[in-house]
């Protein structure tokens, strides 16, 4: 027993020293969503600049915000979603960007230059953007799929085969929009209708899970609320799957990269932001994460199955229904949570 313990401890020591070795001056620590940073792109960056990069993952905007706010984190770059960006800025957690130092900010596509969550791009640059809509197996149901009715008033064919992602704010906002309200509504009539609609619809849902591309592709789940990039992956496995843009309104989101105010390697961080705004490098991220990036000219470096995908390139007729999700005020959030708890009691 003791021998084994010694061996283990020795091995552990050896391994832990190995982990902290291999650095050559430059360092950059990125804090990003899991499975969202192209390893090839990082390798290319390291090769070009000699900067040593670590990528650390977070699993939700709330975790990331909580972690950074507490301090002592050691990160340089963070990639929050658009609706959280104002919170980060207001709390003074992000460094102001200077376009002089990041010349490639000129590559940001027109549509993403002056956005409501970060006017004139003073703090963030685009990383990836996408939509939250519905996915339907058209061999099960071949009616209109561009509506939230898919999961809120489901046709008989889909009843009992629907999965809804457990994202409270997104689902609540979809329901509020469906009954004719605006996101983050505090209008009691709207909220009551939304609640009743959800309560009634829930009996037709089989799960509130992140779901897997596999489950849709194999036919275990026939429809659901899903993200566009994941829907495309599922369609590539099963042609019957199609992605719908609810005409009642659907959230558009953009995860945006920023430099932390207390970054220890701000210069390297600026170099990195400039690097990912290079169309070729932005395309590498898109190819890996399977979402669009908002950098002008990156399309020509992207695989063809993405530049033509109806999930990635929003069809013109569906564009008006999209809205940028905002962070709801505390009052709404508390009501949403209460309805959500009631729904899942």
């Amino acid at each position, binding site marked *: 027993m003791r021998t084994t313990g010694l061996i283990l401890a020795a091995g552990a020591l050896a391994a832990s020293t190995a982990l902290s070795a291999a650095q050559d001056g430059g360092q950059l620590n990125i804090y990003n969503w899991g499975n969202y940073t192209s390893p090839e792109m990082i390798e290319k960056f390291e090769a070009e600049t000699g900067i040593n990069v670590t990528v650390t993952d977070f699993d939700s905007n*709330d975790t990331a915000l909580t972690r950074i706010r507490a301090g002592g984190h050691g990160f340089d770059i963070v990639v929050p979603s658009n609706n959280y960006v104002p919170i980060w800025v207001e709390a003074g957690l992000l460094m102001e960007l200077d376009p002089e130092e990041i010349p490639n900010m000129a590559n940001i596509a027109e549509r993403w230059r002056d956005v409501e969550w970060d006017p004139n791009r003073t703090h963030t640059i685009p990383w990836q953007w996408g939509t939250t809509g519905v996915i339907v197996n058209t061999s099960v149901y071949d009616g209109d799929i561009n509506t939230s009715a898919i999961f809120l008033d489901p046709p008989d064919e889909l009843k009992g085969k629907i999965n809804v992602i457990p994202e409270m704010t997104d689902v609540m906002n979809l329901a509020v929009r469906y009954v004719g309200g605006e996101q983050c509504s505090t209008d009691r009539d709207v909220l009551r209708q939304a609640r009743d609609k959800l309560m009634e619809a829930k009996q037709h849902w089989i*799960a509130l899970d992140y779901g897997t591309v596999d489950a849709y592709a194999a036919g275990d789940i026939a429809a659901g609320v899903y993200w566009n990039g994941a829907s495309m992956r599922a369609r590539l496995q099963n042609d019957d799957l199609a992605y719908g843009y609810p005409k009642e309104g659907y959230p558009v989101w953009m995860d945006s990269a920023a430099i932390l105010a207390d970054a220890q390697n701000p210069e390297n961080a600026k170099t990195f932001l400039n690097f990912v705004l290079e169309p070729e490098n932005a395309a590498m991220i898109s190819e890996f994460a399977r979402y669009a990036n908002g950098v002008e000219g990156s399309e020509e470096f992207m695989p063809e199955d993405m530049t033509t995908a109806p999930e990635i390139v929003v069809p013109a007729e569906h564009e008006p229904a999209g809205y940028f999700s905002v962070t709801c005020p*505390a009052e709404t959030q508390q009501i949403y*949570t209460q309805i959500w708890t009631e729904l899942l009691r």
Partner: protein
Amino acid sequence: MSAVELAPHGADTAKPKAGRGDIAWRWWLVAPALVVLLLAASGPLLIVLVYSFLEPGNFGGVIWNFSTEGWFQVFFTRDIFDETVAPATAHLDIFWRSIKLALYTTFFAAILGFPTAWFIATRAPDVRPIWLFLVTIPFWTNLVIRTFAIQEVIRNEGLVNNVLRGLGIISAPIQMLYTDFAIMLGMAYVFLPLMVLPLYASMEKLDFKLLEAGYDLYASRLRVLWHIVLPLVKPGFIAGSILVFIPAIGAYVTPRILGGGRNLMLGNLIELQFGQGRNWPLGSALALTLLVIVVFALLFYIRSTSQPEGQRHG
């Protein structure tokens, strides 16, 4: 290194006595563990206690104003439409569901775990560690991927349903995934070693002569089991049930992946308050309520089962 110096006295308790010196070495021996626990587990929980009496921050965190609203919300809800106050039955439902599923899970784990531990304990001494390792090997794989593997086995188009259909036993797939059964199955799976290992540890040194004597006396295996074996392995059984039951109440990943998350479990409810719900005081108060319930259950359990202790060693 006080621990090393004091260890010799440890053996001294072979002759039980509870003098002053005896108590002193016991405190020294337990102190290092308590220090680590106080620094890296229990101590920081005081922060949670403080938070439960503050106001929720706009975007997570807290505002440093005293408030009992968090605790109020554990037990009562203000109706969002007509502002009337009613007991928070939704929270009650969720507490009850979590406790119920944890009980089922413990029971299921015991049904499988007891014979398994018994089987291992009755192997030849030199192969016992091998069997023991066999129980823990699956747990070297990651929890999330392991849970997805279970999903793969029980889903509609999965292994079990396809085999049953292939054999002609069923014609349509049995819906196992996204049910309470799936949660129970998954949790029993995840927590099985926590039941088997303590049981094994207490069985391994069973005095089989005693069993044989009992077998002569009672002449029934069931009665030997009930009257002799069970009392002897009780400490292991208690340890196992605690290790399964308590984490099962707060379980989080398994219910979500296998249960489909249609119904919240306590772990999810608390997570919701610290995450998207952005109500840390309520989350803190809910967690402390859980803590109090578990501590009382634990103390009651220990007191009610530890009376005959001591005599056993005589």
